[in-house]
Structure formats: structure tokens, C-alpha cells
């Protein structure tokens, strides 16, 4: 049970309506490692992440974060756990009504009894970590895409969380900016020993930052392994993904006919 894993997902099954999105997903992330969840668009990466974050309840299966099963925990327990979690959402998800610094300070304001000046110092320090020193007084709308992601990262790490999650960190960024963000992710693991889960469909980024990679396809885990293991995998779907080959749909003639006739 509590075997020391930072994240342990067991037989996770989830549905949207009657459609099964994740099918018996197992996942284990060790403390201090960067796990990249990779897969094509629509494979269920974001859905898996939303479950890891406790934003959605699964149909069945368990999700243990730092030893606590969040599918069976009370709101108060989940609340306590969330102080140990940081998330950088795809679009940043900064509160647009506040300045960058206020955004970064928000978790401190809500969860600690620090005085205003201390909070400001902490926020400034975190903004320095993500190379945004001096940008605290701007509103999110005044930042570029890359800056927004870094500001969101500053907010995610302000409580010094043990678990850090990224949804598509390099999506929508130019290659240089994306590479900077990759460096930052590795730096956080090295300097703060965070356990990091990154969801992405960008192969280059995945191979650069990952300690291990999990490949997700149509809601199933195809393979979990080191970068080299994934690269040299002989599973056809994995190779298709790596070589960006479109999926060849196997068509069931009966099913196809039924779809056409709308029956």
C-alpha cells in the first residue's frame, strides 16, 4: 500500500456520460522524479490530470497522492493535501482581476498567517525563480504567453509544494521560450526535489525533461518506461506516435454501415 510512491494510481476508470475515457489506468510516480504523460490529442491526458488534481471523481479505482487516497478522502483532508500541490494550467489560469504579484501571493494569503510584507517578499522571490522579477505589478493581460506560463508557475510553487503538475507547458509557445520553460522544470526538480507530472503531446520537450514517460492512447496506458525504453519500444502505436504517423482506424463494416444509415 504505502510503498513510498508520491503518486499511485490504481485501476482508474472514468466516464463522460456513458463514454469511457480512461480504461484501467495504472500509474506510479516516485518522489523527486519527472513523469511525463504523453499521448495524442484526445487520448485522455487532461482527463487523467483532472483526476490527479481531485477536480473530478472517477467511476472506479483509486488515486493516492503522498499516501492519501483522494477518491475516499474528506473535503478537509483534500484541502490540507492541496497545500502540497501546485498546478500550472495550460493557459496559466491567473486571476485576471489581480496583478501578477497578487496572483502569486494568493495561496499565501488564503493559507498562511504571514504578514503582508513577508508575503510580498516571498512572492518576489518566486517571481525571480521564474525570471519574472520586476513584472509583479502588471496585470495578466499585459503579459506574453511565455510570461503568463512562468507567472502561473511562480504561483504554483509559492507554497513550496511536494507535487507539481503541468498541463501542456510548451503548447502555444515559440521553441526558444518552450525550451526555457523545460529548463525551469528540470531546475525545480533538482533544486527543490519536487515530484513533477507533466502532461504534453510535444515529443521534444517530453524526451528532454522526462525521467520516465507514460504513453496514453485512447484512455489506455500503452507503456511506461525511461526515455530510451519508449524510443526503442516495438509497440506499433508508440512508434506511430513518435513518428507522427496518423492512426490507421480499423473499420468494422457493420458498424460503419450503421453509422451511415443513422440506425
Amino acid at each position, binding site marked *: 500500500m504505502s510503498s513510498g510512491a508520491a503518486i499511485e494510481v490504481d485501476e482508474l476508470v472514468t466516464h463522460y456520460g456513458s463514454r469511457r475515457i480512461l480504461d484501467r489506468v495504472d500509474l506510479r510516480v516516485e518522489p523527486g522524479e519527472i513523469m511525463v504523460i504523453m499521448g495524442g490529442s484526445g487520448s485522455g491526458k487532461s482527463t487523467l490530470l483532472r483526476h490527479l488534481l*481531485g477536480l473530478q471523481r472517477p467511476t472506479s479505482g483509486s488515486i493516492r497522492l503522498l499516501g492519501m487516497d483522494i477518491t475516499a478522502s474528506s473535503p478537509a483532508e483534500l484541502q490540507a493535501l492541496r497545500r502540497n500541490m501546485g498546478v500550472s494550467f495550460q493557459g496559466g*489560469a491567473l486571476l485576471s482581476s489581480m496583478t501578477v504579484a497578487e496572483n502569486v501571493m494568493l495561496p499565501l494569503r488564503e493559507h498562511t498567517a504571514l504578514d503582508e510584507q513577508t508575503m510580498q517578499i516571498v512572492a518576489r522571490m518566486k517571481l525571480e525563480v521564474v525570471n519574472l522579477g520586476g513584472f509583479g505589478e502588471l496585470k495578466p493581460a499585459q503579459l506574453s504567453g511565455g510570461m503568463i506560463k512562468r507567472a502561473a508557475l511562480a504561483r504554483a510553487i509559492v507554497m513550496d509544494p511536494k507535487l507539481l503538475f503541468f498541463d501542456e507547458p510548451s503548447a502555444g509557445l515559440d521553441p526558444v521560450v518552450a525550451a526555457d520553460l523545460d529548463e525551469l522544470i528540470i531546475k525545480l526538480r533538482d533544486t527543490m526535489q519536487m515530484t513533477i507530472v507533466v502532461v504534453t503531446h510535444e515529443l521534444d520537450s517530453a524526451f528532454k525533461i522526462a525521467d520516465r514517460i507514460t504513453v496514453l492512447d485512447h484512455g489506455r496506458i500503452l507503456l511506461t518506461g525511461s526515455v530510451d525504453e519508449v524510443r526503442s519500444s516495438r509497440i506499433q502505436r508508440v512508434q506511430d506516435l513518435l513518428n507522427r504517423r496518423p492512426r490507421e482506424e480499423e473499420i468494422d463494416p457493420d458498424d460503419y454501415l450503421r453509422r451511415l444509415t443513422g440506425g
Partner: protein
Amino acid sequence: MAETRQPALAISLARVGRGFVALLEEFGYYLALVVESFFWIVLGPSRRQPVRLSAAVQQMVEIGINGLPIVFVLSFAIGVMLAIQGIHTLKQFGAETQVVLGIALSVTREFGPLITGILIAGRSGSALAARIGTMVVNQEIDALRVMGINPVRYLVSPVLIAMLVMVPLVTLFSDFAALLGGAVFCNIELGLSYAAYWDQSTGFMTTDDVLQGLAKSVVFGVIIALVGVTNGFAVSGGAEGVGKSTTRAVVLAISYIVLADMAFTYFLNR
């Protein structure tokens, strides 16, 4: 599908049934939202998760103060309109001086709360749905939740407090503006002095008349908050979704306000 073989009546009955269930669900959701909002207002501080008063004040300014000019203009116009109608009707009985009573009662019991409710629904209900809907689309609500910040406490409770305070206050303001409108017209048309108008109005009206209007306005405020917030949280499908929900919030809030007003008037005048 099996349904295509069913008779038309069964299908439409099923549709009505589903619509009814959806409506019940929506009202259940409103109820839960009110309860949770009050839970945080009352118990938040002792759990070290207080409702932000600064946010409530900001909302009050937005709901109340910024809307005052338009409330004044429309309420004043309604007062004038009531005076015109009243004098015209009462003239046939040679009782036009009674118009002051008619205006006073109509304004405090009906028009003040109603016009205020409709205006605030249009201004603030839509803004509320748009603001929260945009936050949903930008994943800001998800971000709040993963930061351990309850969105109801953080976003809904302040709005509810602001509505509970401001809608009745603006209603009082609207009452005065409409009475003033009536007074100005009566002064021009009947030569009635403002002092006499005021004396007659306050002489006829009881505190109950005013309180009845204010009680309504409290309910209207709750309706605007709930409908605005709920439609905001229900947004899906990007910017287009925000637009749809905003429209829906305004139409629904105004409909519920008018229906609630009717029910109120019925039960209070039995």
C-alpha cells in the same frame, strides 16, 4: 433508436417530464448554493477561511453605486407615468387629488422593487455570469479549487452579501426617485405643492407598504445572484458559451423576478 417508434404524445410527454426534472434540478442547485454561501458567511471565519469583505464591498459599489444614475432616470420616468395615468383615470370621477395615494402605493409596493430588480438583473446579473463564465473558460475556477480556495466562498458569498445589502438600498432610492417624478408632474398639472405632496404621501403610506417592497427586493437580489452565478458556472464551449450564458442569465433572472413578484403580490394582498 427505440424512441423513434414511440407515438408522438409519449415523446412530448417524455420531453415535458425531462424539462420538469431539469427545472427541479436547477432549483435544487440554487438552494444548495444559497445554503453553502451562507455556510461560508457564518462559519468561514472560525475555519480560517473567511469571506472576503473587500470583494463584497467592491461588488456593492459595482451593483449599487454605479447603477444609480440609470435607476434614477427610469424610476423618475415611472413616477411621471404613474401620475399621468392616475390623473387621467381619476379625472373621470373628479378625484384627481387622490392620485398621490395611487402613486405612493404603486411605487413602494410594486414599481420601485420591480424596476430596481430588472435593472440590476440587466446590469449586474449579466456581468456576474460573464465574469464567472470567463473564469470557467480560463480554468481560473479550477485553479482556485486546486489552490484549496472554495469558489463558492471566494466568489459567490461576496456577491450574495452585496446583493442582500444593495438591492434593498437601491430600491429605497428608486422609491424616492419615482415619488419625486410623481411630485414634479402633479406640481405642474395640478399645482400641488411639493410639501403637500410629501405630506399626503407619507400620510397615506404605512411602514408596511415600504417594508413589503423591501422584502421583495431582498428576494430579487437573491434571485439575481443565484441565476447569474449558476449560469456563469455552467458555461462550456469558450467565448461563445459565455455569451449564451450571459443572455440566459438576464432573461431567466428577469422572468423569475416577475414571477416571484406576482406570487408575492398575490399572497401579501389576500
